[in-house]
C-alpha cells in the first residue's frame, strides 16, 4: 500500500507562500502528522481538511508575521491607502461585488438549509415514502391501500422496516376548556422509533394499541399541543379528551412534532396529536380493511443498509404487477412509487434554488470579468508609476502583489458588504412568504455560509487581481516608461471588450424588460380581485364532525344558530356562511355532466369547485346574478335538487347557451343526483386568481339546505372601517355558546389570505428586479471601463487637438459618441432579444401584454441614460488633458 498523501493543493499553498526552505520543511512536517492521523483511523477526507486548514493557518501566520521582508500586511496597507484616495472608483467596485456576493450568499444560505443539512432522523438517508401512481392520471402521489401493502410488506426484501400512517387529516379536539382543531397523524407504533420521536412524559404508542379490530383509544400529544391546549399541565396523562366526538385517553407527550412527515405539506400546520392507525375507523369513519381500492394511507420505509433506492423501487414495482394480477379490479393501472425523504421534503424547491444559484454564480462571474477589465484599465493608467517604482528597485513580483492586494481589499470589503446585504435580503425573502419550507429547516447566515461567501469574494478578488496583473505584466514595464501606453491593448483585445459591452447592454435590456413585465404583472395581480367583495372580511372555519352531526338536519340547525349569533355581534354589518370551501378557494369539487351522461360518458365529466350557500349569500359577497334566480325558501331539503352555475361552467356544459332550466348530473352525498339549474352568476376567481385569472372559472353553487356539508366558513363583515380582527374573540365565544365541542380554526382576514397568495409573485418580481439592477450596474461599469481605456490611449491625440484649437465640446462629443454608439447597438440587439424572451414569459404574466410598448420605451430610455453617465466621467477627463503635459510625455 502506498503511503497516503495529503492534498496537493494545500501543499502547494505552503510552497508558494513560504520562502524556501521554510515551505519545504513545513510540507514535510505536515506530511508526517497527516500520516499519523490517517494511521490513527482518521478518514482521508477529515485528515485532508485538517491538512488544508493547517496549511492555510501556517501560511497566513508566517506571511503576516512581517519579519521576512515586507509581507502582505504592508501590501494591504498600501492598497487601502490607494483606494481611499479614489473613493468613487472604490465605491463602484465595492457595490458591484457586494451585490454579486449578496445574491450568492442568500442562495447559498437557502441551498445550505435545503441540500446540505442532513434530515433530522435516524438513518435518514435510508428512509423513504411509498405512495401510488395511476397510469391514467396526470397527478401522482396517491395514497396506498391497507390490504395491498399488508399483502406485500413481509415479502419485501429491500425493506428493513415499514410503518403505515395517515397524516392528512385534522381532528376536532374537545372535552377541554375550549375546542381545538388539531392536525393529526394516525400511525403504526413503529413510526415513532423510525422517526426518532421519543416520549418526554408517559409513553408513545405500543404495538398492542394497534391490535386489528381492537384499537386502544389512546392518544399521544405533541409538546406544542400540550402547551397550547393544556397549558403544559403536568397531570394531563390519563385525561380523557374527545376526538371528533369519540373519547380517547392521553398516554404520552412527544417532542419533535416539527420534524413530523406532515411538514412536507405546506401551510397545514405541524402535527399536534398521534393516534393509533386502527383509530381511523372510529375517528374518521374510514374502513381500513374492507375495500382494497381505498387508498388513503402512506408507508414510511427504512431500506436495509446498502440497498439503493432504485433497487427498492424495482422490487416495489414488481409487487405492484403481482397485485394487479391477483386483484385486477382494484389494482389495474396502479403502481408503487418510492420517494426518498429528502426528495419528499424538498422536491419543489430543489430546481428553482439550483437554477437561481447557477444564475447567481454567473452574475458573480460577470461582475468579476467586468471588474477585472476596470482594474486592468486603471493599472495600465498607472503603468508609468509602476515603471518608476520598478526603476527605483521594487521587484516586479512585489508590484504585481500590490495589484492583487488592491483587488483583494476591494473584493473583501465588497464581500463583507455583500454579507450584510445578503443577510438583510434573506430576512426580506423569508418574510415574503414565497419560500415555504418544513419547520425543521433553519435558513440563516451561519458561519459556513458566511465563510463560503467570503471565500467566493476572495476568489473573485484573486481572479480580478490576476487578470489585471497578467495584463500589466504583458505590457513590458520598462517599455512604458518611455511611451505613454500607446501600444497597450491590441485591436483584438479592444474588439473583445466592445463585444462584452454589447452583450452586457443587451442582457441588461432583456432583464430590465423582464423585471418591468413582472412588476407590471404583479401590480395587475394586486388589482385583480376575486370577483367578489373582499373588504373588511373576517373568516373562520369550523367542522361539524362526530356523532352529534351525523344527520344533515343537525348540521343545518347548528349552522343556522352559528350564523344568527355571529350576525348579532355588535359591529358586524353582515354575516354569511360558505361551505365546504373557503371564499377564494376551490379545493372541494364536484364532477358534473349534462343529464343522463354521467355514467356513460366519463370523459365528459367537468370538474367544478362546489360551494354550499344560503339564500342571499351570492348577493352579499357581490357576485352578480346574470340569469335565473337565487336560492330561496322553496329549495327545501326534500325539494327538487337545484344548482346555480358560474357563467363559464354554464358555457362548458351547454355551449349552445342559456343554461337556466336545464338539468345536469353529479354525485351528492354518495348518490348520483340530477340537478336543475336555476341561475347563472358571473365568474368569481375561487381557485385561479393567480394561475389563470382571466380563464374560465368553473364553479357550482348548491343551497346549503340541500347540500349540508360538514366544513363551514363563517364570514363576518365589519361595519366599514372597523377592524375585522376585533371580532375574533367574540366569535370564538359565540361558537362556544352554540357547541363547546366545536373548534374555531384558520381565523384570518381576507386581506391576509390575499397577501399570502401574492407572496410568490412578489418574490419572483423581487428577484428579477434584483438581477436587472445588477445587470444595469454591470453594463454601466463596462461602458465606463472601455471608454476610460480609450481616453487614456488617446491622451496625446486629444492633447494635440486641444492645442490646435479644437473645442472642448467637440472632444467630449467624440468620446461620448463612441460609447453611445456601442450602447445603442446593445439596446437594439437587446430589444430584439427581449421581444423573444417576453413571449417566453407570457405564461407567467397576468394581464400584461408581453410586448407592452411602454416598458420597452422606458428601458430604451433608461439604459442610454445610464450609459451617458458612464461616458461622462472619462469624457470629462479627456477635456482636462493639459496639451503641454500630453505632448511632453513623448
Amino acid at each position: 500500500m502506498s503511503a497516503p498523501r495529503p492534498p496537493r493543493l494545500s501543499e502547494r499553498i505552503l510552497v508558494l507562500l513560504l520562502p524556501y526552505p521554510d515551505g519545504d520543511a513545513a510540507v514535510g512536517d505536515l506530511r508526517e502528522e497527516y500520516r499519523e492521523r490517517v494511521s490513527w483511523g482518521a478518514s482521508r477526507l477529515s485528515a485532508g481538511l485538517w491538512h488544508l486548514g493547517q496549511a492555510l493557518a501556517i501560511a497566513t501566520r508566517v506571511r503576516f508575521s512581517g519579519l521576512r521582508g515586507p509581507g502582505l500586511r504592508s501590501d494591504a496597507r498600501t492598497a487601502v491607502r490607494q483606494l481611499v484616495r479614489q473613493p468613487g472608483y472604490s465605491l463602484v467596485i465595492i457595490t458591484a461585488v457586494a451585490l454579486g456576493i449578496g445574491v450568492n450568499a442568500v442562495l447559498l444560505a437557502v441551498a445550505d438549509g435545503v441540500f446540505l443539512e442532513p434530515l433530522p432522523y435516524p438513518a435518514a438517508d435510508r428512509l423513504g415514502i411509498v405512495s401510488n401512481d395511476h397510469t391514467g392520471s396526470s397527478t401522482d402521489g396517491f395514497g396506498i391501500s391497507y390490504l395491498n401493502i399488508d399483502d406485500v410488506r413481509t415479502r419485501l426484501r429491500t425493506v428493513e422496516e415499514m410503518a403505515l400512517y395517515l397524516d392528512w387529516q385534522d381532528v376536532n379536539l374537545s372535552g377541554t376548556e375550549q375546542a381545538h382543531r388539531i392536525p393529526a397523524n394516525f400511525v403504526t407504533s413503529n413510526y415513532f422509533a423510525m422517526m426518532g420521536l421519543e416520549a418526554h412524559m408517559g409513553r408513545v404508542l405500543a404495538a398492542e394499541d394497534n391490535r386489528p379490530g381492537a384499537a386502544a383509544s389512546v392518544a399521544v400529544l405533541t409538546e406544542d399541543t400540550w402547551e397550547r391546549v393544556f397549558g403544559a399541565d403536568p397531570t394531563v396523562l390519563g385525561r380523557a379528551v374527545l376526538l371528533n366526538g369519540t373519547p380517547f385517553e392521553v398516554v404520552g407527550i412527544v417532542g419533535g412534532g416539527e420534524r413530523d412527515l406532515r411538514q412536507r405539506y405546506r401551510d397545514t400546520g405541524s402535527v399536534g396529536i398521534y393516534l393509533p392507525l386502527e383509530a381511523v375507523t372510529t375517528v374518521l369513519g374510514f374502513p381500513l380493511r374492507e375495500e382494497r381500492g381505498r387508498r388513503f394511507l402512506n408507508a414510511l420505509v427504512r431500506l436495509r443498509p446498502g440497498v439503493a433506492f432504485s433497487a427498492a423501487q424495482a422490487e416495489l414495482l414488481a409487487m405492484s404487477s403481482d397485485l394487479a394480477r391477483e386483484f385486477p379490479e382494484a389494482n389495474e393501472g396502479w403502481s408503487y412509487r418510492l420517494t426518498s425523504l429528502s426528495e419528499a421534503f424538498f422536491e419543489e424547491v430543489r430546481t428553482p434554488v439550483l437554477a437561481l444559484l447557477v444564475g447567481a454564480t454567473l452574475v458573480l462571474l460577470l461582475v468579476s470579468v467586468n471588474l477585472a477589465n476596470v482594474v486592468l484599465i486603471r493599472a495600465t493608467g498607472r503603468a508609468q508609476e509602476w515603471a518608476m517604482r520598478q526603476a527605483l528597485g521594487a521587484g516586479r513580483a512585489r508590484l504585481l502583489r500590490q495589484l492583487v492586494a488592491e483587488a483583494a481589499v476591494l473584493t473583501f470589503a465588497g464581500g463583507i458588504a455583500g454579507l450584510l446585504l445578503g443577510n438583510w435580503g434573506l430576512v426580506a425573502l423569508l418574510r415574503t412568504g414565497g419560500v415555504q419550507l418544513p419547520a425543521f429547516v433553519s435558513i440563516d447566515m451561519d458561519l459556513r455560509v458566511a465563510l463560503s461567501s467570503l471565500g467566493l469574494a476572495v476568489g473573485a478578488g484573486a481572479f480580478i487581481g490576476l487578470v489585471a496583473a497578467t495584463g500589466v505584466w504583458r505590457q513590458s514595464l520598462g517599455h512604458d516608461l518611455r511611451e505613454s501606453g500607446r501600444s497597450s491593448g491590441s485591436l483584438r483585445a479592444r474588439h473583445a471588450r466592445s463585444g462584452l459591452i454589447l452583450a452586457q447592454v443587451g442582457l441588461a435590456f432583456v432583464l430590465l424588460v423582464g423585471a418591468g413585465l413582472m412588476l407590471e404583472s404583479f401590480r395587475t395581480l394586486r388589482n385583480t380581485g376575486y370577483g367578489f367583495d373582499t373588504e373588511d372580511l373576517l373568516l373562520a372555519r369550523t367542522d361539524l364532525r362526530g356523532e352529534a352531526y351525523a344527520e344533515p338536519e343537525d348540521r343545518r340547525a347548528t349552522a343556522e344558530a352559528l350564523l344568527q349569533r355571529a350576525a348579532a355581534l355588535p359591529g358586524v354589518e353582515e354575516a354569511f356562511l360558505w361551505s365546504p370551501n373557503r371564499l377564494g378557494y376551490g379545493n372541494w369539487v364536484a364532477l358534473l355532466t349534462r343529464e343522463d351522461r354521467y355514467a356513460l360518458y366519463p370523459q365528459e365529466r367537468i370538474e367544478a369547485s362546489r360551494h354550499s350557500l344560503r339564500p342571499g349569500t351570492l348577493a352579499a359577497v357581490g357576485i352578480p346574478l346574470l340569469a335565473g334566480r337565487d336560492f330561496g325558501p322553496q329549495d327545501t331539503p326534500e325539494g327538487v335538487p337545484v344548482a346555480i352555475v358560474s357563467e363559464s361552467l354554464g358555457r362548458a356544459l351547454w355551449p349552445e347557451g342559456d343554461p337556466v332550466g336545464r338539468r345536469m348530473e353529479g354525485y351528492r352525498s354518495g348518490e348520483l343526483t340530477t340537478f336543475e339549474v336555476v341561475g347563472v352568476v358571473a365568474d368569481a376567481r375561487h381557485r385561479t386568481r393567480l394561475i389563470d385569472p382571466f380563464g374560465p372559472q368553473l364553479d357550482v353553487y348548491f343551497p346549503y339546505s340541500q347540500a349540508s356539508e360538514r366544513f363551514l366558513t363563517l364570514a363576518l363583515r365589519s361595519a366599514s372601517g372597523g377592524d375585522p380582527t376585533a371580532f375574533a374573540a367574540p366569535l370564538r365565544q359565540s361558537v362556544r355558546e352554540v357547541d363547546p365541542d366545536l373548534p374555531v380554526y384558520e381565523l384570518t382576514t381576507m386581506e391576509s389570505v390575499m397577501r399570502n397568495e401574492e407572496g410568490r409573485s412578489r418574490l419572483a418580481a423581487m428577484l428579477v428586479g434584483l438581477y436587472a439592477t445588477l445587470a444595469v450596474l454591470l453594463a454601466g461599469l463596462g461602458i465606463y471601463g472601455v471608454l476610460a481605456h480609450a481616453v487614456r490611449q488617446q491622451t496625446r491625440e486629444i492633447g494635440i487637438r486641444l492645442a490646435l484649437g479644437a473645442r472642448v465640446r467637440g472632444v467630449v462629443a467624440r468620446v461620448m459618441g463612441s460609447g453611445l454608439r456601442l450602447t445603442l447597438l446593445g439596446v437594439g440587439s437587446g430589444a430584439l432579444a427581449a421581444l423573444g424572451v417576453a413571449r417566453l414569459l407570457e405564461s407567467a404574466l397576468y394581464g400584461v401584454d408581453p410586448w407592452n410598448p411602454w416598458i420597452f420605451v422606458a428601458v430604451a430610455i433608461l439604459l442610454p441614460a445610464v450609459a451617458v453617465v458612464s461616458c461622462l466621467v472619462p469624457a470629462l477627463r479627456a477635456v482636462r488633458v493639459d496639451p503641454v503635459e500630453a505632448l511632453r510625455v513623448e
Partner: protein
Amino acid sequence: MGEHGFLGEFELVVMLAVLQVGEGAYAVNIRRVIEERVGRSVSRGTVYVTLNRLEQKGLLASSLGEPTASRGGKAKRIFRVRPEGLRAIRATQAMLREMARGLDPLLEES
C-alpha cells in the same frame, strides 16, 4: 530579543523546548514538547514564526536534515541552540529570578 538581551515569554518557551528535545529538534517535536509540558495547544504557525525570529536574532541555528520516507522526501529543518541563545536564556531567567526575589510568600503555591 532587542538590545536588553531578554527573551519574550514564548521565545523562552521555544528555546527551552529546543534544549529539551536535544539532538534533532524540528518543528513537530518542538511543538509536541511544548504541548506536553505546558499542557495547552500551540499553533504550528506560531512555532514556525518564533523559530524563524530566533534564528534571525542569532539565538538558534538551523540546518536541513536527512529527507526521510515518512516525510515523502522532504527534508527536516533541524534547530540547535547557539551559545548566544544559551546566554539569552540565562539572562532572562536571572532577570525573572531577580524580579521575583522577596515575593516568595506571595508567589508560592499554597
